[in-house]
């Protein structure tokens, strides 16, 4: 009797990923904030310092994962919010692809920046 509801099997995967990324982000975001606002004050940040941090492979990987997780969590959240507002049909498809493209661009740009920040010193 539920035939008129189209099945959307990725929904529970997205729901779960949203939670998993949330847990990851809570930890990393706290670390990020502490490091860049309390340990190093934002005003004192220079590319040299950034490069020093980014050159550590662990830090680099964490930041890239941080970026990917945050982008997924944020963009998926935005998409859910819009769906809950009742967006459906073509606008919904457009938004879905629009958001996907934006995510990919953001992640690509982020990784590119991170790579530049290593200054080629990544060990």
């Amino acid at each position, binding site marked *: 009797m539920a035939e008129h509801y189209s099945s959307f099997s990725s929904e529970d995967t997205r729901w779960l990923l949203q939670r998993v990324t*949330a847990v990851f982000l*809570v930890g990393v975001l706290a670390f990020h904030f502490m490091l860049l*606002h309390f340990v190093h004050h934002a005003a004192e940040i220079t590319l040299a310092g950034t490069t020093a941090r980014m050159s550590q492979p662990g830090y680099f990987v964490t930041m890239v994962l941080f970026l990917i997780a945050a982008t997924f969590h944020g963009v998926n959240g*935005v998409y859910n*919010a819009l769906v809950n507002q009742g967006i459906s049909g073509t606008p919904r498809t457009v938004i879905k692809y629009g958001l996907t493209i934006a995510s990919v661009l953001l992640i690509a740009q982020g990784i590119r920046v991170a790579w530049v920040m290593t200054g080629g010193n990544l060990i």
Partner: protein
Amino acid sequence: MSQSYDRGHIESFGRWTEFSAGMWAWVLHKFTGWVLIGYLFTHIAVLSTAIQGETMYNGTLQGLESLLIVRFMEVGLLAVAVFHILNGLRLLFVDLGLGLDAQDKSFYASLVVTGAIAIGSIPTFLGGF
């Protein structure tokens, strides 16, 4: 969420004031979420100045940091992020079926802790100005 029926001015009569804790939590979570995703894009854009070299990067960052408004916005950003994190933790517990009876209390607690952290961080953010 569109109204299926227009009750005119009567429909909107006092609705917002009658929201319960859980609904406010939802509204604030959405709001802070939007702010954070907006910030994420901006943040990457700002950091992208690193591609144009050290001078540009350092100049941009220090230029921004020298603006009082930016410092205040940072406090706001912290508050937004802290709330989103705390309420997110609350929601994770709800997803696990824990503490559902205290869902309103945990929301109020998130608000209080957010406020405390935001106020407590003011000296750090505005310091060295």
